[in-house]
């Protein structure tokens, strides 16, 4: 760790017209959040490796023709970042709308209704309807585990569960099969969750899941709430041990 600290430099940059200083190596997303500037995310979760898949945190950087994912872009000296603009807002709306169209997110009958990051994101981005054709896929619910449930209808493939299972719990029970819109979360060799010999039943995946895809069994509509605070703590403890 000391080697890293010695090379850490202080950097100044501008985010949304606000002059900010931070340490080198920090990402735009981290620095923005430290400074109470909100950038929407769904796949990012503090304590897990950066995935860069949801593309909601795309920001504009002055003098760059391209958009950049704030979660995966490190701050550099003199950088000027804009985290919101009519164009960005439009893109973010479309991305969330597409998630609603991709699978079956029926909020009214979902156990996570009212505690769902996807639902909250739709409200925050003022999405009042979905412009895209719905896909209406026929997807299964894995009810085989004693006290947890995977409902593919609600999954947005953020892979938080896969990452927490591999990176934090170390079991790597979960991964993804297939590709494109047909990809899906699996356990071991695509076996029922309840039959998995590698799952430790720790339940971390349930708590990091942003939607009603991974839930505790026995919860009724609107009853499922999640806790993610444990994650940064566990990550910190792992670092201390190193």
């Amino acid at each position: 760790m000391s080697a890293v600290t010695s090379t850490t430099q202080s950097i100044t940059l501008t985010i949304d017209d606000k002059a900010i200083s931070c340490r080198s190596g920090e990402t735009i997303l981290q620095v923005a959040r430290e400074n109470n500037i909100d950038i929407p995310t769904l796949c990012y979760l503090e304590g897990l490796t950066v995935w860069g898949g949801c593309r909601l945190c795309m920001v504009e950087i002055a003098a760059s023709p391209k958009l950049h994912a704030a979660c995966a872009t490190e701050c550099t000296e003199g950088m000027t970042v804009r985290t919101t603009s009519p164009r960005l807002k439009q893109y973010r709306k479309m991305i969330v709308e597409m998630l609603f169209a991709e699978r079956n997110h029926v909020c009214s009958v979902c156990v996570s209704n009212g505690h769902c990051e996807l639902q909250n994101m739709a409200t925050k981005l003022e999405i009042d309807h979905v412009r895209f054709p719905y896909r209406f896929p026929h997807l299964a619910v894995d009810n085989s585990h004693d006290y947890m449930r995977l409902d593919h209808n609600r999954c947005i493939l953020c892979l938080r569960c896969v990452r927490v299972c591999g990176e934090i719990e170390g079991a790597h029970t979960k991964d993804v099969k297939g590709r494109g819109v047909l990809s899906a979360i699996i356990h071991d060799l695509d076996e029922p969750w309840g039959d998995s010999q590698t799952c430790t039943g720790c339940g971390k995946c349930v708590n990091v899941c942003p939607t009603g895809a991974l839930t505790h069994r026995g919860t009724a509509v609107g009853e499922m709430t999640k806790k993610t605070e444990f994650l940064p703590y566990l990550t910190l403890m792992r670092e201390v041990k190193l």
Partner: protein
Amino acid sequence: MTTTTTATTTRPTVATVWLDGCSGCHMSLMDLDERLITLAGLVDILHSPVVDPKEFPQSVDVTLVEGAVSSEEDLHKANVIRAHSKFVIALGDCAVTGNVPAMRNYWDRSDLFDRAYVENAQEPPTAEERKVILPLTVVPPLRPLATPLHEVIKVDLYLPGCPPPADAIWFVLTEFLAGRVPNAMSVSRFGK
């Protein structure tokens, strides 16, 4: 109600329609309680499941539509509504997203019918009986997919919610009467 009365009125006219939904959105409308009386003083409700006339009027200022478009009849109604309404509001999640009625879309229609009319029958019907039992001739046929309203007609405002709270309906209507296009997302959300 005739076109003559429509022509003499100077107050804004409102219609509400119930397509494929549970009527919960209309219940929510009823939950306006005493504000219903205020509303009756502000607008003429020309057509609704809760008023008498069964025909859709020639011209309406605002039509609130509850429910998804599931059957050929729903589609027909939607087209009529669009042709004779100046402003169409999709009322509630079924009209906005398809919601619960659209949960049938994960299966093929024939599988659905089998499940509902054949598999669950006390005695399995014969091939001849099947023709009569399955809802294919007497009632309006189901469309392949139950869809949100905006998949078939242009919608001017979306008020999500399951159901949208009475306060949200009130807010939208009063904003509209005040000549403003309301921001429905400030008062409701999917699944609320």
